[in-house]
């Protein structure tokens, strides 16, 4: 009789405990969902206030470096674009316009997909880190006199997926981006690439994206021995 009473008490305690746990789970889920919504709102607010979509100057002449797959060449092309006033937004608009040319039907560096698809998630500009390897030596050594701006170009995953695979097409894509950035924003001296905000091994199986590219010598070719 006494044992049955204890069992009933324990069972009631368990039921209450279970109910409390269920309530706690529901409350925590609600809190998490609310926090996630707030974080998304903050991100949207940041995105909406991005300079590329706010201030835009009058149309100005810009240089796009257009690649040609057939002969491996890079051709400067002048265009008139309305650009944001800040450099980061300017770089993003420039590169998006460059990538749009790849989607054109008569493109010399065709990429499958529809023009207007965002190929660039974002472009971040920052001072070149001081403790980076020197230009002439691949050995990582501190570079006390490094100057200029490091551009970090973040591709969308969709663009990387549509990029034709191959050493030449991938290299030309990177060189045209580097050349376009340097032609219009000479302060940019180094460029790194991300895909969807993350470091990737390659663009589409070949061109190395783990490295920092220097823009200073993209206009001179290797000399034969």
């Amino acid at each position, binding site marked *: 009789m006494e044992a049955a009473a204890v069992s009933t008490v324990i069972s009631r305690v368990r039921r209450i405990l279970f109910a409390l746990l269920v309530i706690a789970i529901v409350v925590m889920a609600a809190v998490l969902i609310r926090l996630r919504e707030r974080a998304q709102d903050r991100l949207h607010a940041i995105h909406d206030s991005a300079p590329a979509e706010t201030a835009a100057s009058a149309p100005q002449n810009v240089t796009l470096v257009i690649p040609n797959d057939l002969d491996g060449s*890079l051709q400067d092309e002048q265009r008139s674009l309305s650009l944001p006033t800040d450099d980061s937004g300017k770089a993003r608009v420039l590169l998006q316009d460059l990538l749009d040319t790849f989607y054109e039907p008569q493109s010399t560096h065709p990429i499958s997909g529809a023009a207007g698809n965002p190929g660039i998630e974002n472009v971040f500009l920052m001072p070149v880190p001081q403790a980076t390897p020197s230009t002439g030596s*691949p*050995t990582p050594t501190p570079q006390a006199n490094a100057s200029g701006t490091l551009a970090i170009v973040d591709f969308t995953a969709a663009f990387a997926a549509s990029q034709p695979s191959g050493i030449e097409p991938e290299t030309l894509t990177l060189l045209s981006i580097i050349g376009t950035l340097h032609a219009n924003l000479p302060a940019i001296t180094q460029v790194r690439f991300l895909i969807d905000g993350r470091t990737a091994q390659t663009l589409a199986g070949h061109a*190395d994206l783990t*490295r920092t590219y220097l823009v200073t*010598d993209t206009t*001179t070719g290797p000399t034969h021995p």
Partner: protein
Amino acid sequence: MLLLGQSPPKPQTLPPAPAPSIPAPAPPQVALKYTVLLDAAHGGTDTGARLAPNLVEKDLTLDLASRLRSMLAARGIEVAETRTSDASLSADQRAEIANKTPFSACILIHATATGSGVHLYTSSLAPTPPQKFMPWLTAQSAYATRSLKLLSDMESAFAHAEIPVTLGRTALQPMDSFACPAVAVEVAPLRRRASSKTEPLDNPDYQRAVLDALSAALAQWRGEWRQQP
């Protein structure tokens, strides 16, 4: 205008900040015997580029490497390969094979559906003097000059075979880790400017012409590889 074929861009690169300190086996090694390493790109789950509805890069590169090996053997040239089957190898594993033995030339074989003719690439690393220990990720920098000489021989051979060539420099793993004169050979469909005719990558005559030119270039290199830059 920048022409890769005439005035190729030179995308100098910097290695990533946390560069491993794995040394190359010996700086820069001179192989005692003329031996060529053929690296058929991709393999296993890494199919590489889709070249045709039923042809992927990993299969074509393996086939080309296998046939080139036979052609070089017929010329009395010793050949090693990074893979002889549909095996999946990481860039580090390929570099490990290349750096275990001092090779006289390392040829990375790739294929692509875009462009025309053959694309020849050397590393974009700036040349550096030989050191006792080379950083693993940039071991190729000590061989940059010799790689350009090898590329020059290849360019001549393809010109002789009337196959259009595009030259360039690129950041490509595992080539940047190779401690040997190294050139990446990327075969593309042959699009002739004079006519609208295109030789697809699976054309046996075109493949044969490419392999003949490569074989001739590597035979030419046999007489030059011992010369220091």
